[in-house]
């Protein structure tokens, strides 16, 4: 992944999607993905409509399609799995480009690819239009246990610091002529990982001291609350509701 904590997916902007309250966006994306996942795979055109919906959101948010496509790389291992399906799944066989493939396998591959791609795209759009800080506030607003949100925000705050330490250790190793080439060198790398753990844990203890010194007693003061107006909820709901309509209207004879 190599992304560190510098929220690489975020694209700065001032579009209506950027301005939408984070918890509305989270709910909208989750709702949308649930509808997508619940859609029967035979409804090929429904998936096309979902894709068009996401395209519209991307256009409003001014996120380039190229950026979204590049991020789809994350799916690759499962794409490989999907491509295997037509060959390993038993069932009715058919010929495609001169190769024997199974029909249920093809459907399975299509199902995974379509839903997975739509899911990743929706998540990428969420991440591209929402700042880290806002995401945490959104999760907090959605009543995630406060302790969980605190842990997540500490992870975000220090992910970067720890990754930097790891990078410095790697530079130090290489400066002394060490280059990890194979399994033989795992011991050295593991020692680094162990040292990194100790540093992380000790830093956690120091952070705790610093917090207690400033009056921390176990709960974070809530400084920022994100709020959403009815109008904002409505515009956020547009995505999942339209998707649901597509799903429902699709089969009315």
């Amino acid at each position, binding site marked *: 992944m190599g992304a560190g904590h510098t929220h690489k997916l975020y694209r700065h902007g001032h579009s209506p999607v950027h301005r939408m309250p984070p918890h509305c966006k989270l709910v909208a994306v989750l709702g949308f993905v649930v509808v997508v996942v619940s859609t029967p795979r035979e409804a090929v055109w429904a998936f096309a409509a979902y894709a068009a919906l996401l395209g519209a959101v991307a256009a409003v948010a001014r996120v380039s399609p190229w950026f979204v496509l590049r991020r789809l790389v994350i799916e690759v291992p499962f794409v490989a799995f999907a491509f295997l399906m037509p060959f390993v799944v038993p069932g009715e066989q058919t010929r495609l480009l001169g190769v024997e493939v199974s029909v249920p396998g093809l459907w399975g591959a299509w199902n995974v690819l379509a839903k997975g791609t739509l899911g990743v795209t929706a998540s990428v759009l969420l991440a591209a239009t929402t700042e880290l800080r806002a995401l945490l506030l959104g999760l907090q607003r959605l009543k995630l246990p406060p302790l969980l949100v605190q842990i997540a925000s*500490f992870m*975000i*705050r220090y992910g970067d*610091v720890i990754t930097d330490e790891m990078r410095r250790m790697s530079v130090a190793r290489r400066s002394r002529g060490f280059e990890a080439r194979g399994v033989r060198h795992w011991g050295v790398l593991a020692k680094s990982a162990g040292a990194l753990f100790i540093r992380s844990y000790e*830093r956690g203890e120091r*952070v705790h*001291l*610093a917090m207690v010194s*400033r009056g921390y007693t176990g709960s974070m*003061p809530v400084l920022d609350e994100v709020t959403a107006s009815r109008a904002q909820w409505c515009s956020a709901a547009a995505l999942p509701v339209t998707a649901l309509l597509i799903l429902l209207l699709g089969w009315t004879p």
Partner: protein
Amino acid sequence: MSLSFVPSLDVRGLAYAYPDGHQALFGVDLTVERGERVALLGPNGAGKTTLVLHLNGILTGGAGTVTVAGLPVAKANLAEIRRKVGIVFQDPDDQLFMPTVREDVAFGPAAAGLRGPELEAAVHKALARVGMQEYADRPPHHLSFGQRRRVAVATVLVMEPEILVLDEPSSNLDPASRRELADILRSLDVTVLMVTHDLPYALELCPRAVVLSEGVIAADGPTGDLLADDELMREHRLELPFGFDPTRKPATR
């Protein structure tokens, strides 16, 4: 007001052993008057950090007493003590644990119950005192080391502490940041206890110095006099930088 005759900090016969049996303090006596700037010098392992952690009650339970502005450090008034004693830890990354500078500075007063415009005003004032107002909405890890240290100072200044305790304030700073921090510290009308190995910095900022060695105060006097005492310095493993003459430049107040 009669209160102004009460010393900011009064430590009497403080002794402490860690739970593992290692004894760090063997009866420390130290009085710091209101408005004084005192340097706490001493070799590694002298018990400096242990002493500092007693000042706001993170460590308690040994023999002796610590009194801050007339208020004894005890379980019952820990919250008040932690408001009065502002500790700036050595690594600003440990101290700045919130996602943005503004939230970090607000953490202490918010934990004490301050909210709304008063909180905003307090945060703004504290950031202004260290010249960091325009960085309020930046995440701490996007700042330079010197800037992070200044924000760390602001996070405790915002509590309007009775005494500011700085742990190695000049470590890792480039000469310009070092100078800026010195100017800021000089401009504050607050009692300062500065733990440091940086003897020129101590001489520059603190008219008085105490030497902590093997868990007791081994010397107490004008900083210039202590630094000029070769035998004392050697005995406690304190060394002046090459070419530095402590008698040439008197401490400024």
